[in-house]
C-alpha cells in the first residue's frame, strides 16, 4: 500500500519527460550450469530507453545486437572465445557487453571504447553501478579500462599497454558498430 501511495504522491514525470530520462535497466542472462535457474548474470545500466540517437551519438541505449552478442558470449562456445582473454570493445555504447564480460565471463582484461567522450563517461558510471570501478586498482578480478577511441589512427602494439593499461587484445568485440563520419569531420 505504501508503495503505491508513494508512487502516486511522488509527482511522476510526464510520459515525454520520463522517456528522455535515464532509467535503470537490468539485463539478465541465465547461467549455463543451471542451479534451478537461480544463478543469474545480471548487468544493470543507467540508460535512455527511448533515444536511439541524440546529441550526435547513438550510444545512449543498449542496442539489440549487443543483447544478442551477449547471449552468444554466455553460451559455451562464446565463453570459450573470451575466457581468460584480453578484450577490446569498439562502440561500446552503454558498456553492456564490457560489463558482462568483466563481471560474469572471466575475461583477463577489457578496454571499453567509444568514439564519444560523453558516452565513455556513461560507461564509467555503469561500471561503477556494477561494482567495476576503473579507478580501483584491485589485484583481483579483471582489469577494466575505458577510453574515447578515435578511429583512423594507427594503434601501436607496443604502446597499447601504456595507453590502455592492458596487454594487446586477443579479441575485439563489436556489436552494431556505426561510425558517424559527419561527426568526425566536425
Amino acid at each position: 500500500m505504501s508503495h503505491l501511495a508513494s508512487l502516486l504522491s511522488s509527482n511522476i514525470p510526464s510520459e515525454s519527460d520520463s522517456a528522455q530520462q535515464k532509467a535503470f535497466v537490468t539485463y539478465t542472462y541465465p547461467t549455463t550450469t543451471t542451479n534451478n535457474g537461480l544463478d543469474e548474470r545480471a548487468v544493470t545500466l543507467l540508460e535512455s530507453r527511448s533515444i536511439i540517437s541524440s546529441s550526435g551519438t547513438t550510444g545512449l541505449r543498449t542496442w539489440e545486437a549487443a543483447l544478442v552478442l551477449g547471449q552468444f558470449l554466455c553460451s559455451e562456445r562464446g565463453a570459450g572465445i573470451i575466457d581468460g582473454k584480453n578484450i577490446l570493445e569498439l562502440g561500446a555504447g552503454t558498456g553492456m557487453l564490457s560489463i558482462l564480460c568483466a563481471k560474469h565471463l572471466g575475461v583477463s582484461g577489457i578496454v571499453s571504447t567509444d568514439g564519444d567522450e560523453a558516452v565513455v563517461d556513461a560507461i564509467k558510471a555503469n561500471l561503477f553501478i556494477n561494482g567495476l570501478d576503473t579507478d580501483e586498482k584491485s589485484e583481483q578480478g579483471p582489469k577494466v579500462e575505458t577510453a574515447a577511441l578515435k578511429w583512423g589512427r594507427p594503434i601501436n602494439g607496443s604502446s597499447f599497454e601504456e595507453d590502455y593499461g592492458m596487454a594487446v587484445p586477443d579479441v575485439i568485440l563489436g556489436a552494431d558498430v556505426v561510425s558517424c563520419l559527419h561527426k568526425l569531420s566536425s
Partner: protein
Amino acid sequence: MDSTVQRSLRILRRQYLQLVEPNLLRWPDDAVLKAQEVQTWIFDHLFNSEMVSTLPPERYQLRVLKSLTARIERSIEDPEEDVRCPLFPYSPSNYIVRTYLLDLMTYIITSFMVLGQLLKTGFIRYPALINFMFIV
C-alpha cells in the same frame, strides 16, 4: 513455492527489470498471483526499493502495478473466501494486495488532479481578476 511458480516469477522479474512493455510481460497464472507468498515475493523483488536498489522508473512501476492489481482482482472467484485472505490480510508482509483499494483511490485522486490542472490553465484567472479589482 514450487519450482514452476518460482521459474515463472523469475521470468517476470527479468522482463520487468529489463523494462519490457507491460502488455508484453509474461505473467504467472491469475490463480498463482492470488497466493499471498507470491504477492509478497513480487513486492520484495519488483517494488521494494530497500531490497532492489536499481528499480525501473516510477511510471513504469505504476503501469506494472496496475496490471498486477487488475490480475489479482480478476482471480478472485469467491469474494467471501478469497477477499478475506488476500485483500484484507492481517499480515504486515502483504503489501501488494493492500494496494488494491488504494488503486481505486488513485483513479479518483488522479482524475481530480487532472481536473485541477485544467482549471489552473483555464478558469483560475477569473477569481484572480476579481481579487485584483477588489484591491483597486
